[in-house]
């Protein structure tokens, strides 16, 4: 029997969280090895386990995969969450890239200098409402199906759910004008694997606090 995937990252969301979500949604158990000090990262690098010296890194099926997208693509294909053909994949990829763009904007807020923060938040809220949520609401309304692509669960539904939760953390009123998205969120949250992941005690990570940011800064030197 193949071993469980092993995720290497620091103990926080970062760029690993979307991978945790996808594995959880696929019902795949995984282990985590947390990078807790600079020496942990150095060791991974010296052992030649990080192709571009960076994490996330996931040990899976005899490979040491790096680059978030490569990891997500592999997992999605392996667990049949990537659509049924090349065209569905293209749609999934397009939607996913938009989700990644907004997630990165939100995720980088913690690093934003205090004097720029208000302007950044304002920009994020504007983009969230007028660019991204608007686009996804339109997709759902357009086909009237329960999932974004191909009338069944795919990776992009999970990525979007994750994003919607971050949007809510930022400002819960942002979702108000989007009934389709609210319904999707409810529907997805009730799926057994997702429901389990949403419960306390799962491997889902909380937002970073100031202490964790300091620790990450020391390890990753930024």
């Amino acid at each position, binding site marked *: 029997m193949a071993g469980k995937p092993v995720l290497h990252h620091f103990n926080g969301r970062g760029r690993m969280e979307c991978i945790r979500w996808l594995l959880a949604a696929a019902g795949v158990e995984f282990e985590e090895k947390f990078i807790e000090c600079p020496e942990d990262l150095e060791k991974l690098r010296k052992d030649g386990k990080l*192709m*571009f*010296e960076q994490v996330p890194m996931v040990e899976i*099926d005899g*490979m040491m*995969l*790096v*680059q*978030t*997208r*490569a990891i997500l*693509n*592999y997992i999605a*294909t*392996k667990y049949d969450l990537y659509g049924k053909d*090349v*065209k569905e*994949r*293209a*749609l999934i*990829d*397009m*939607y*996913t*890239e*938009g989700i990644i*763009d907004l997630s990165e904007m939100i995720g980088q807020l913690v690093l934003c200098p205090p004097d720029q923060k208000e302007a950044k938040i304002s920009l994020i809220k504007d983009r969230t409402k007028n*660019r*991204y949520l608007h*686009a996804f609401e339109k997709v759902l309304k357009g086909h009237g199906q329960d999932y974004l692509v191909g009338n069944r669960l795919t990776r992009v539904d999970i990525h979007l759910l994750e994003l919607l939760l971050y949007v809510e953390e930022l400002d819960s009123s942002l979702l108000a004008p989007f009934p389709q998205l609210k319904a999707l969120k409810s529907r997805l949250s009730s799926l057994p694997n997702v429901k389990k992941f949403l419960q306390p005690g799962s491997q889902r990570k909380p937002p970073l606090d100031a202490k964790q940011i300091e620790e990450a800064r020391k390890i990753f030197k930024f």
Partner: protein
Amino acid sequence: MEAKPKLYYFCGRGRMESVRWLLAAAGVEFEEEFLETREQYEKLQKDGRLLFDQVPLVEIDGMRLTQTRAILSYLAAKYNLYGKDLKERARIDMYTDGTLDLMIMIASVPFKPPEEKEENYALIVKRAKTRYFPVFEKILKDHGEAFLVGNQLSWADIQLLEAILMVEELSPSVLSDFPLLQAFKTRISNIPTIKKFLQPGSQRKPPPDDHYVKVVRDVLKF
């Protein structure tokens, strides 16, 4: 007979250049519509052709594809440049994500404060020499094959060549410590479709100049 793919972007490299490279390498003829005015951009938006109000946009096979990586993945799969199985695809994804990161860094510099230009380019050359090129040199050394993955031409090879040429524009001697990459560069450059693309008069675009930066800023209003 299939219609030619149509590319919508500024008349310059930016995020569309990798798409041009891939199509050219695959021997696929394509049309281009260049964005020169704000009005053109607003028309694309109003016509609902830009999912997230962004270019690049590629119209192909009845789809309006945006998001660079979504476009590239679709083309790679369509033109058989994505490896023969899931594991080869994972490697191609890893390698291309790395080189794409590097090229996006290069494409972003003209839009940053001019006083930071030298420093930004120096960092890029350093990353290329210490993080990216050594990895690809080692991959070629370890398997001794002519191409990066699966002993046949793939998206990874085309993109690595593109990245090498872009970094060489910043630092002509950047490959001096990498003999296998030098041979790789020559070999891939001599592939007939690529050789043609490298010649004057092809749809390959020159490095960004002040005029290009101005057009982009005017059209996108930033």
